[in-house]
């Protein structure tokens, strides 16, 4: 079969004038991505070991291990490409938002039937992603609905199975990054990224989607509308981690942005200033689960935080994007 190829026009990539990107790519991989996944892998190993030793949902050591590992996940949760997407690992680590209550349904199903899938890691990995990962474990540790349901032994075994499954996924991503890293640092024929520009664009996309997810989903879901705020839609509200996730993601995204703009000091400064403003707003909130969205005053402050994140995104897309050869096609960038 002969494919007929006709070039009617050529795009001049703006990034064609950019300097060598190799050092930025190597730095981002070695100092941002790999340490992040390595930390997650270690923290989830500790979580699995802790759960094995003590599965009491109210146990301080178990809850501390849960918080540490969850922190490490949120800090790399913007890196949604490559190893995290294989075999649905990222979704199995973090099923949120859960608009139709699949997680409580999955847990109720497992517990009420005493599903034996939890006895083997392979069988558990075949169950719904909604009943696995940090958000399912959070319900087991913090939601009173699940501290009484079914038998104590089964709940204990379920918590242990979840922790082990989280660790298996996290360490699989970490292990795969060992090999995947070269795709970003040495783009070309053997890599999904054919050029340094394409590799840079993947990282830029992670920055932009990370900012959008935090502004529109982490904050937007509990904010709802002025007439109908939705505090119960806040992320990980039962363990009071909602605001913490915003802070952790902004801190991680600031680090990524600084590395991606390393060869443009003016842009780096603009981005860092905007991140600082957003993080300071987050730190001044003192409202861990965004309950204040239900009040006019509280909502106003959270809206201001959301706007400050949108400001960061605007700087990233208007200043940083063009340096990476991102030219916004009318139909190609924001399709429908």
């Amino acid at each position, binding site marked *: 079969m002969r494919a007929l190829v006709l*070039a009617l026009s050529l795009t001049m990539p703006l990034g064609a004038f950019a300097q060598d990107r190799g050092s930025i790519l190597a730095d981002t991989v070695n100092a941002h991505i790999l340490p992040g996944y390595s930390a997650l892998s270690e923290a989830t190993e500790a979580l699995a070991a802790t759960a094995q030793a003590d599965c009491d949902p109210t146990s301080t050591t178990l809850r501390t291990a849960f918080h540490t590992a969850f922190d490490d996940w949120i800090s790399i949760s913007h890196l949604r*490409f490559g190893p995290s*997407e*294989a075999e649905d690992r990222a979704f199995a680590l973090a099923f949120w938002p859960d608009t139709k209550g699949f997680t409580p349904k999955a847990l109720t199903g497992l517990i009420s039937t005493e599903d034996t899938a939890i006895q083997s890691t392979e069988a558990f990995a075949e169950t719904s992603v909604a009943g696995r990962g940090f958000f399912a474990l959070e319900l087991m540790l913090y939601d009173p609905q699940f501290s009484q349901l079914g038998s104590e032994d089964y709940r204990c075994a379920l918590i242990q199975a979840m922790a082990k499954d989280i660790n298996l996924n996290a360490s699989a991503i970490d292990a795969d990054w060992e090999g995947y890293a070269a795709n970003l640092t040495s783009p070309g024929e053997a890599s999904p990224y054919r050029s340094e520009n394409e590799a840079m664009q993947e990282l830029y996309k992670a920055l932009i989607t990370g900012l959008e997810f935090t502004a529109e*989903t982490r904050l*937007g879901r509990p904010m709802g509308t002025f007439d109908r705020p939705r505090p119960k839609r806040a992320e990980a509200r039962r363990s009071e981690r909602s605001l913490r996730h915003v802070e952790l993601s902004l801190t991680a995204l600031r680090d990524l942005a600084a590395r991606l703009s390393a060869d443009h000091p003016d842009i780096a400064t603009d981005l860092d200033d905007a991140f600082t403003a957003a993080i300071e707003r987050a730190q001044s909130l003192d409202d861990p689960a965004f309950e204040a969205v239900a009040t006019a005053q509280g909502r106003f402050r959270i809206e201001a935080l959301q706007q400050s994140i949108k400001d960061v995104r605007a700087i990233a897309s208007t200043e940083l994007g063009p340096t990476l050869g991102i030219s916004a096609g009318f139909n*190609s960038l924001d*399709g429908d």
Partner: protein
Amino acid sequence: MTSRRRFLAGLAAASLTPMRGWSAIGAPDYLAAALFPDGSYRLAGLERGGDILFSLPLPARGHAAAAHPHRAQAVAFARRPGTFAIIIDCATGAQIAQLEAPTGRHFYGHGVFSTDGTRLFTTENDFEAGQGVIGVWDTEDYKRITEFSSGGVGPHDMRLMPDGRTLVVANGGIETHPDTGRTKLNLPVMQPRLTYLDQSGEVLEQVELPRALHRNSIRHLAVRADGLVGFAMQWQGDTSQHPPLLGLHQRGDELKLLSASEADQSTLQGYAGSIAFSDTGDTVAITCPRGNALHQFRVSDGQLAGAFLLDDVCGLGTGPNGFMFTTGTGVIGQLTATGAKIATRSDCQWDNHLIPIRAAA
């Protein structure tokens, strides 16, 4: 100048007839939304040579439109998640009516008129339930009559089957909520499907993609005269995979998925914007604005018949000798047996879709 004269002649003729038909305004062959060089978003009527016969202002960026089967009226939708659509008298540019989505609903940007023109059907989101609905409107006064389930989540394009009764809906599978903008809320559990409904909402047939492709959102449709449905998809899964973006379905049969070679397919970035059959129905094509490509396939054996590099190509419709296409860079072009050629170049940034007007076709 020809087009202007035709347009003025159309206006003169229009003033004499109470119910203006498409021929009265120069018989445009297509409708398309665009960002015009003066910064305004407009809906344009195009003839097959590429001339703009008229253009009418839209309140915001448009998406698709649907043409009334005989009245010179069009419904233009805002981009999702818009809550209004406007009915335009294409002869005068006047807005005849504005459709407001009911509370708790928003439009997805596509709709279709019934064969007799008395009803308009619109794809909508019941966003609290996270379920798709089809709104039914009376075209006499453009009041809402009723609604029914679309048979899935995230209904996008919808067409009328050649029997004039059956609706086919692309339930894209992606749940969104206005509180969170265009954020996709259900990727791990999304399940796109093609749904056939009668006009009272009864589901006649549903077809789903294989499990491994459940993250391939079915978004846009084309229907051949014999009822063969073509659908274009947008991949929401791992970007290192390059699944088919075009499918064919004949009622009662299995789905067929069409793909170029891995080397060609991998340049498309998992995204197809529009789909159409050629005038003879022998070939089917998709536009891929992220890959700057138009792929044409033979229906008979499902093989790639041509791949064309076209910057930001997206709008696509059946043409007189194949296809017509538009691009975000201002090109209106024709794809025929001898290849792709530019008919006109303008400063308009043509939006996603090029909609053939049935009465004129």
